[in-house]
């Protein structure tokens, strides 16, 4: 099943972009296909990266790097194994996580920038409210207790590590791992 591009995910002429198809075209060296993906997704990708990295310039760097990887790895995209959109955002998220962990490790600072700048975009309850009705994720997250669903959303959207979650929830590091796994297991039970 190809990934249908929801409204708003269009190229410059306003045509909805089928990401699976565009990736297959990228694999043949079609530069316009990369441009189509960029037009449809770059802004959202910067938003996703910025939720983790906070700094706008760093978020654009992550998106730049992701597109380079997309172009170079396009031949390895297999539409029978999953959606192109998820493939694209996995590449972005992996790259963003690497940058985030590097930044936190190499900066001469006492606390990462990410902790210092909060915005409404970061609030887990707001994020859950924005989830589309087209998937069951919102309904199933809402079956979890607030602390559990918020931890899942925070971890995913902000690129937190186990120790970050442990700090934020004032929960011992030893119990955080299994606590999150149990939360996800409940989520999976609901999602089926």
């Amino acid at each position, binding site marked *: 099943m190809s990934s249908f591009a929801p409204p708003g995910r269009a190229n410059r002429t306003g045509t909805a972009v089928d990401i699976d198809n565009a990736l297959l075209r990228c694999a043949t060296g079609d*530069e*316009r296909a990369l*441009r189509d993906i*960029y037009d449809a997704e770059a*802004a*959202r990708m*910067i*938003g*996703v990266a*910025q939720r983790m990295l*906070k*700094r*706008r*310039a*760093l978020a*654009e*760097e992550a*998106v*730049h790097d992701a597109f*380079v*990887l997309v172009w*170079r790895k396009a031949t390895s995209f297999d539409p029978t194994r*999953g959606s192109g*959109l*998820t493939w694209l*955002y*996995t590449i972005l*998220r992996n790259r963003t*996580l*690497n940058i985030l*962990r590097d*930044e936190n490790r*190499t*900066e*001469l600072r006492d606390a990462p*920038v990410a902790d*210092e*700048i909060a915005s409404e*975009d970061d609030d887990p309850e707001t*994020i859950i409210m*924005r*989830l*589309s009705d087209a*998937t069951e*994720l*919102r309904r199933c997250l809402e079956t979890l207790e607030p602390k559990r669903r918020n931890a*899942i*959303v925070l*971890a*995913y*959207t902000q*690129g937190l*590590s*186990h120790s970050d*979650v442990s700090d934020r929830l004032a929960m011992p590091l030893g119990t955080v791992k299994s606590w*999150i*796994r149990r939360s*996800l297991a409940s*989520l*999976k039970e609901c999602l089926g």
Partner: protein
Amino acid sequence: MSDTTGQMPVSDDNNPRLIAMDVALGLVREDEVSATIAADATFQTALADWRMRLAPLDDTATPVAPSDALWPHLLSSLGLSQSSAPDAVQSMTPTRSQPSRAPVRDSAPGFLAGMWESLTFWRSVGFAGAAASVALAAGLVVMTERAQRRPIFVAVLVTDQNETAAIVNAFADGTAELVPTRDFAVPAGKAIEIWTLWDRQVGPRSIGLIEKARTIRLDLRHLPKTTTGQLFEMTLEPATGSPTGRPTGPILTKGTTEVAL
């Protein structure tokens, strides 16, 4: 407790399904997972399933319009032509048909220097994408410990009252640091963004963002090696940095590099 087939019992620590949860959430990086788990088909399937379940969360991010520089930067990194670029973008990226290189500066030894030479995409043509993609795929820039290092270039940043407010030290291994010597009053919701400029055609590039004056390492990974006469400046910007990719706020302090004797 082992089972009768003699295989290693699956505990929580090596359970591929559970580790897949950690990776899909981003708590653990995919490249931090052991080779055994990574190769496990159960792990791969579980990871793909979890990513699909959680993917709608990415749709909740507020889109942020890319700065004008991003697409040309990307084209240049990939060595692609301008044919797929929008009309409004000024043509700074030469096409593949003329593979002449701009003058190459003396190379310093080391992985970082080598990566920067191949990433001077604004100056060179026939850019060797392969080297950059390996570096990007590796995903890591190794920042060496400072130990006893002396800078090779120094910039003294002064205010418009000609008072020294910060020093930039650029080291031979390609790293640099900003050392403020004066405090700045930073209003709530704002931050200090640090820029460098080496070529007016390229324009200023953001290399750091701090919420108050303090010493930090500067992020020069994707830039050409620092030279003499290179401008560094600090401007006041919104808390998450300039929304345009160029300085928008007042210049707090600036200065150009000189060779450290």
